[in-house]
């Protein structure tokens, strides 16, 4: 650096260097490959948004290594600051490339094709003799060239013309690249101002779109301010249909939808691949499960009566997921000591007894004489979640099996009344126990449906971007830019047309096109020589 340079000019120069670096194709290439590499890491390592439980497992298995990866945000690659930085740099580089190219493109469209000085220096060059006068010969040649889709400009003396074709290649390329900006704006707008969450609704229940009702299964955008839609979804029924082979064929949630102000009421079927739009949100069929209705009474006072939403463990290798029992918890926090019941629902009682006798797990598709195996824990509840139970401050006080329509004593695990007592844990139960103070009844089992509720205003823009990408890509790859020049010279009685041309791409195809073009020009007058 020369000693005389001022800080301002140094700054200007460094900005210039950075800008030039960003504009170069090499930078764009390196950025593209870096993004590919980062994405590969994101798919090979478990990711927090997709499978948090596998991340936890990974951290447990690889302590130091896992900690390092966690610090580097490699468990959330696509949400990490450095992935965003790479994307940002790529887009800056894109714009830096596109601005001058677009300007040049506009100039090229406005400008007439430039006349050539030495036509015979071009890769393609031919001379044809025609009988017409030079002026007529040139205007005929112009017609031929123009009919083939070239833009034509004649020189002032009407002795030569310049023509070009295939500006669509550069235009397509520009559309293709600008479309990514459209796409990016759509993504940022949609994800930033939108939200997506999962609503768990048991048959017969009504769910309202509000933050508190997502039970933590909600993601909102960074610029999310407009609030939730407030619509109500009432699940009438959920039904599933299976082929004979056990392959699921369809999942359908029949819902009644009510707008936030109650003015608009509609019924709809939400099915896989058939989302429903209502009140500015879209509702998708996401999942389903069983919910056992559990009533608990203390001293013949109902203290709880609600469906328990139940979930399954992942089936071991070779076992159908449909064969797994459904797990749920009832937590009685108002009792002292506190009581929790772990429920294991077998929708098909036959499958339960088969599993007891032979250890074989068979798929359960319908609810046929459902049974629940339960365990009662007494002590102190430390875990407020409805989906898990931490028993380290509790001890198991009773267990047993309960069928639909039956009631059990939660303190002893003994059945009360009911016509067909189910086997308990083998403990002898007194005939007609006297006044149990805490009882549990299992009147029925219902389906629940998991619906994804989301608002993404960017989708149309993203789609538009995607369509523009495709529309731009085709001419950008498959058309070619070519230029043709013609000069006419008088030649005793007729004229000689000197035709030159070259193509920037697809040179082989142009050779044939050029031959045909020259033949067509020659055919306009009586060609001689």
């Amino acid at each position, binding site marked *: 650096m020369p000693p005389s340079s001022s800080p301002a000019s140094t700054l200007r120069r460094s900005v210039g260097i950075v800008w030039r670096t960003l504009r170069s194709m*090499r930078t764009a*290439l390196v950025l593209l490959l870096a993004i590919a590499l980062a994405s590969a890491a994101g798919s090979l390592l478990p990711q927090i948004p997709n499978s948090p439980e596998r991340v936890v497992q990974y951290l447990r298995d690889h302590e130091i290594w896992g900690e390092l990866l966690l610090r580097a945000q490699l468990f959330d690659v696509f949400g990490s600051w450095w992935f965003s930085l790479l994307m940002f740099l790529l887009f800056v580089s894109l714009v830096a490339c596109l601005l001058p190219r677009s300007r040049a493109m506009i100039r090229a469209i406005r400008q007439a094709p430039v006349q050539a000085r030495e036509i015979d220096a071009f890769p393609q060059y031919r001379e044809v003799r025609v009988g017409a006068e030079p002026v007529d010969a040139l205007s005929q040649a112009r017609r031929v060239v123009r009919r083939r889709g070239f833009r034509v400009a004649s020189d002032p003396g009407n002795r030569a013309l310049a023509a070009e074709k295939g500006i669509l290649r550069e235009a397509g390329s520009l559309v293709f690249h600008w479309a990514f900006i459209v796409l990016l704006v759509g993504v940022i707008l949609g994800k930033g101002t939108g939200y997506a969450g999962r609503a768990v609704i048991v048959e017969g229940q009504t769910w309202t779109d509000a933050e508190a009702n997502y039970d933590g299964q909600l993601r909102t955008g960074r610029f999310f301010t407009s609030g939730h839609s407030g619509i109500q979804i009432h699940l009438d029924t959920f039904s599933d249909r299976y082929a004979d*082979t056990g392959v699921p064929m*369809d999942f359908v949630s029949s819902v009644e939808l009510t707008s936030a102000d109650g003015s608009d009421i509609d019924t709809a079927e939400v099915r896989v691949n058939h989302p429903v739009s209502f009140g500015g949100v879209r509702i*998708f069929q996401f999942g389903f499960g069983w919910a056992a209705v559990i009533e608990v009474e203390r001293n013949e006072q109902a203290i709880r009566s609600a469906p328990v939403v139940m979930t399954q463990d992942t089936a071991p290798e070779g076992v159908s997921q449909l064969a797994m029992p459904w797990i749920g918890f009832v937590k009685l926090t108002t009792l002292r000591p506190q009581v929790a019941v772990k429920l294991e629902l077998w929708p098909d009682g036959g499958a339960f007894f088969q599993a007891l006798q032979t250890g074989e797990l068979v798929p359960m598709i319908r609810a046929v004489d459902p049974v629940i195996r339960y365990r009662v824990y007494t002590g102190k509840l430390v875990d407020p979640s409805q989906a898990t139970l931490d028993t380290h401050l509790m001890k198991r006080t009773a267990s047993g099996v309960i069928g639909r329509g039956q009631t059990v004593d939660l303190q002893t695990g003994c059945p009360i009344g009911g016509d067909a007592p189910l086997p308990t844990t083998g403990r002898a139960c007194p005939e007609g126990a006297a006044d149990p103070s805490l009882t549990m009844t299992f009147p029925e089992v219902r389906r629940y449906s998991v619906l994804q509720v989301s608002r993404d205003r960017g989708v149309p823009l993203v789609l538009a971007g995607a369509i523009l990408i495709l529309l731009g890509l085709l001419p950008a790859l498959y058309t070619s830019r070519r230029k043709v020049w013609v000069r006419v010279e008088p030649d005793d009685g007729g004229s000689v047309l000197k035709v030159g041309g070259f193509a920037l791409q697809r040179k082989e195809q142009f050779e044939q096109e050029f031959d045909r073009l020259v033949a067509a020009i020659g055919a306009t007058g009586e060609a001689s020589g």
Partner: protein
Amino acid sequence: MTDWAAISNAAFTVALFCYLAAMVLSFAFAAFRRAPMHAAGVVVGTVGLAANGTAIVTRGLAAGRTPWGNMFEYSTVLAFLIVGATLVLVEWRWRQPLVSGFVYAFAVLTMAMASLYFYVDPGDLLPALNSYWRQIHVTSMITASSLLGIGCVMTILFLFKDRAERRAVSAMERQDPPPIMGGAIDADAPPDFAAGADEPVPETRQSTKRGILPSASALDRLAYRFISFGFPIWTFGVICGAIWAQKTWGRYWGWDPKETWSFITWVIFAGYLHARATSGWKGRRAGVVALVGFVSLFVTYYAVNLWIAGLHSYAT
């Protein structure tokens, strides 16, 4: 129904062995240059293609739906398109008889992998797959995979040939006197033979006539044709996949492993197309980028289903 399935499986086996035989014949032709070998290779390859087509159609009849719903069917269709595109474009249109053997090898590998790891009896599909977007998405993804796959076979051949040609040229430069143009170099001649140096790979290197492959520049052009043909179809397929995902899962993009890898493959081939237009990246470096794209294509196609869990794992 089981009859159709049995016919389909038999046709699959016939196709596999035909491709194997066509591969051997094709390599034999490349090595010994006997025209009957080439003719026999084309005939056996065409018979294999017909059997492959039969396997696809009868499988569709057995399952009562379009037969590209799982990895096995996907691979069968892929092999069909690879061989079909090679026979029609490379053999018939562009008259390049020397490279088909490598494409048959690719098809044989694909089909062998399919029957070893992915075979399932024809049956119904999950409800999430039951959409016409599936047909559009999967069809375009298979088509694009086959074109990019052939392009990458050509790229590998190009890299080999390019290396051989470079070595031959440098070996000749060491000889004294160099036997270029049948005699000694006229030192006073104008250097106009350097014309065309802007081309990615010079056309007229001395060694092009030797070896079992077409010239490096011909292979490079073939590779580019297939990749630039496959790339927009891949783009279209990914977009259709996003539309389908929006309808099924309520989001058009969720960085699911299959989505991520299709994106990675897209990015790498976009890099290839840009590399070809960048000085210093033309030729060999662009070829290496395409090769990386090939690896990524394979990960997208196989590894994601075999080893990485995700929403697309139902396809196995």
